[in-house]
Structure formats: C-alpha cells, structure tokens
C-alpha cells in the first residue's frame, strides 16, 4: 500500500469514503476496442510524428477518432494509425549495449577534424 504518499493534490483526490464496492466494479468491465498509435504530419514537407494513442474498432474509425481527438485546431494534414500491438520497440534496459557501437566513433562527426581557419566552405 501507498501509505507513505499522504499529501493530496488537485488531480489527486483523497480516497476517503468511496461509494463503491469491489463487486459492483465488475458490472462495468468489458472487452473494448483495440488500442492504436497515432502519427500526424503537421504540414507538407514534415515527418509524421507520434502524438498519442486511442481506441477504435478498426482503422477507418481510428483515423476518424484521431481527427477528432488530435486535430481539432488544424494540427495535421495527414494521419497514420498503427495497431499498438504491431509496434516493436527496443528495450530501454539494453540501450547501453544497443548504442554502444556508436559511442566510440567520434570520427563520424565533422568536429573531429582539425582544418585551418583559412579553409572556408567546408
């Protein structure tokens, strides 16, 4: 239990005297629409960028919902949706190992080379 977190904040309302019982909770649990990740191109010429996720029954509905949730103020000109379960991600615990090969190759950066100041346009 979380008894060391005792201060209450706005958006963190005390649990005192809830009107619910555990068993009536199950009445509302149900299988829902799958989760989708949403990517939006904010204007022509830019990459699609991840903006968040939402639930929808299928791709067409996911795009429509993405329009309503993520582009109410003209934030996008193009929307991609991908089922969240189809996204494969690198493991943050292995990020040390994963990026290690790039770590000792400073010579891949232009600043590694000493060129006389008199040389321009390089």
């Amino acid at each position, binding site marked *: 239990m979380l008894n060391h*977190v005792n*201060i209450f904040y*706005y*958006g963190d309302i*005390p649990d*005192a005297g*809830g009107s619910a019982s555990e068993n009536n909770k199950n009445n509302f649990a149900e299988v829902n629409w799958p989760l989708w990740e949403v990517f939006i191109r904010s204007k022509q010429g830019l990459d699609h960028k991840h903006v968040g996720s939402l639930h929808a029954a*299928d791709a067409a509905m996911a795009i429509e919902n993405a329009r309503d949730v993520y582009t*109410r103020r003209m934030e996008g000109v193009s929307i991609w949706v991908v089922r969240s379960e189809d996204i494969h991600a690198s493991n943050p615990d292995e990020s040390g190992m994963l990026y290690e090969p790039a770590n000792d190759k400073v010579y891949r950066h232009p600043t590694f080379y000493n060129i006389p100041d008199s040389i321009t346009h390089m």
Partner: protein
Amino acid sequence: MAQNPEELFLEKIEDEIKIEPRDWMPEAYRKTLIRQISQHAHSEIIGMLPEGNWITRAPTLKRKAILLAKVQDEAGHGLYLYAATETLGVSRESTVADLLSGKAKYSSIFNYPTLTWADMGAIGWLVDGAAILNQVMLCRTSYGPYARANIRICKEESFHQRQGFEILLTLSRGTEIQRAMCQDAINRWWWPSLMMFGPKDSESTHSDQSTKWKIKRQSNDELRQRFVDMIAEQVKVLNMQLPDPDLKWNEERRSYDFGEINWEEFWNVVKGNGPCNKERLEARRKAHTDGAWVRDAALAHAEKQKNKQRAA
C-alpha cells in the same frame, strides 16, 4: 560501476530526464501516477456534465458554438489523459470501470450544480483558471506521457478561461439583473475553486514523495496563493466582489491574505455528499450503458470486414 535500477531512476529524476513508459520505475511511483492521472482524466470527463447542462440553453448561437467546442475539448483532455494512464500498464476498461463503480475519485468541483448561464462564465474563469495553474506545473512533471498530455491540454485551455471571463464581462456590463447574476455565480464558485487545490500543506504529516519524484513541483498552498493573487486583481475589471471579507492585500508578503476555507464542506463533497455526486455518476453510467450497443456493433462490423478481407 553497475547501478541498481532504483539509483538509476533517482539519478534521472535528479537530472531532469523524463521517465518513459518502458523505463524501470518504483512500483509506488507507478501507482501514484496511475491514481493521479486517472483522477485527472475522470475530472475532465465528469467536468463535461455541468457545462453540457447549458449547451441547449446558451443565450446566442455564438455562445452555443463556443460552449460546444469547449466541452468537446474537455472530452479530448480526458482522452489524452486516459491514454497516458494506459502507458503505465492499466487497461482503459478497468480505469473507466473504476469511475463508473464509484471507486475512483474526480475533482469535487464538478459536484456543484450549474444554476444560471453566469455559471458558464464563472467555471471558465475560476475553475479552468485554477486547473490551468495546476496543469502548467504538470507540463514539467517527471513522467513523459503525463507531461506531454498536459502540454497539449494547456495549449487548448487558455481559450476556456478567456471565454469564461468574457461571459462574465458581458454580464457585468449588462442590466441590473445580469450584474446580480454575475455576482451570484462568483459567490457560489469562489470557495469551491479554492478547494480545488486540495488540503493545506500543513495537513501533510508524512514525507512528500510526490515532490521528491518531481511528479508535483509546487505545493497546494503555493498554487492556491498564486490563484488568489491573480483572481483578486481580475475581479476588479468585472466590478464585482469576491465573497471573502478577509481578502486583503498584504504589502509585506506582496500577496493577498484570504479567509479560511470550509474544510468540512471539502471533505463532505470528497466523501460523496456534495449536491450533485449521485447525479454525475448516474449520468456517466447511463451514457456508458446506453452506448453499449454502439461499441458492440462497431466491434462486430470490424470483425465482419476482417473476415470478408480474409475470404477475398
């Protein structure tokens, strides 16, 4: 050399590096976030009800369109936050079920009724105003998805506060009855708005883990004071009064002193005995139950389309 995950986590917090969903985090950090973000989400969703109450009765077509857009924004805020909650490993269904069963809490401010059109103004100005102070702080919270949700919310929220103030400004320049309506709404919403910031800092006897983890970066009293200082100035433009005889500029503190909040009322509403607690939950349950066939039909349709594609 090899650090344990907890040290690594605390080092990130120390260095202002955001924690992302797949990073290791203490179980208590995860639980605190699930609780706080889902309560925030529920508040946005329940918050649509008191204002939704006035959409059909807005005085002009312009005000109706504005209010509709604002309430739609609140739905969006709820969705950004539910999505952030899901990144912590709880399903949307179980989060929503907690709200509907009455197990989860939401901001008590939405358990007060909206009696007149002026309440739309007071909510935008005071309630959204208080929420903005909190959300601006949360843009810098240590958990990445929650910070990003708040950044998105804050971009949209300033229109909410401005439209509310404008409603009151219009009323304050109107007839005597309109001015009285304006003052009445301020009278009723002022104290509940102050309660939105939560109990006094001195109420906390235990160590404040939320601040150490940088989930929260300012205390309830700090935010509340900033709110009072802001509103006490703005109310002058409306030529109205805040219903607090103890409200007074304190030259020494360069801040406003204000009266004692009725904490008994605060706890009473938290415990479920506010004027509208039952009504709000009933409305959400009804919407959920009435919408069940739509969710089922959409799923069935998606399934059928998939089978058709497979057959082809």
